[in-house]
């Protein structure tokens, strides 16, 4: 697996959510993803970036374009040092929310990508990794 491109961006406020959307779109268009692929991944990125801002108290995202034997993929890693998620299974359920949102963020993002992994430790923070192949 070769890392073709890697960018790190801070995710601290609502303007950053917009910037993350734009950056992911740009990277995916450059890498030749279809419009539906781009729309799904950008939507997932928007949900996860908002989680970082609202629940994680800010953090960062790493945007990687990878080549796995000619198979191009885009990978996003969202990391924050917020309070963490005590019950991940519950957090992944549709409709579960600790704020006033719709509770679609995590579960919805998971459905929009090919690979999804989450690691969270209470008091330490949360790391969510998503990947979509072209």
């Amino acid at each position, binding site marked *: 697996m070769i890392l073709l491109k890697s960018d790190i961006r801070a995710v601290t406020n609502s303007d950053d959510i917009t910037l993350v959307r734009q950056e992911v779109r740009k990277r995916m268009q450059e890498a030749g993803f279809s419009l539906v692929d781009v*729309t799904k991944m950008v939507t997932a990125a928007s949900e996860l970036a908002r989680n970082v801002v609202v629940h994680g108290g800010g953090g960062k995202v790493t945007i990687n374009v990878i080549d796995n034997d000619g198979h191009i993929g885009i990978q996003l890693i969202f990391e924050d040092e917020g309070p963490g998620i005590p019950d991940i299974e519950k957090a992944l359920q549709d409709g579960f929310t600790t704020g006033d949102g*719709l509770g679609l963020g995590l579960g*919805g*993002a998971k*459905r929009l990508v090919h690979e999804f992994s989450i690691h969270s430790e209470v008091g330490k923070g949360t790391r969510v990794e998503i990947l979509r192949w072209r």
Partner: protein
Amino acid sequence: MEHIPILKVGNFLLVTIQVDMHDRLVMQLQDDICQRVIKDKAKGVLIDISSLEVVDSFIGRMLGTIATMTKTLGAETVVVGMRPAVAITIVELGLKLENVHTALNVDKGIALLQSLVNGGEVLYDSFEK
């Protein structure tokens, strides 16, 4: 303060979203539409999202809230122009937009608003024959 323009067309308000909205702009739009429904005594609100490349759960919730709030104020809301890729995505995301009326384009949206406002009677001649 940034605002999304709201145009008055007869009894209706027309809102065309042409920028990638950050969250504060979304909240501002919600407030602005309510103020204008009252000020202009509008009977309907048409929101054109044909330029929106992404509708995430936050924007989806805003559309639902606007529809509910305007209804409380006596005005119907119709969302028009959703892109096919956006429609495909929000279904997978799990967004339902259950209380939001939708139409294909502005023309059909106005026709739908007319029929909602006039109790089922379509006055605007734009439905497919």
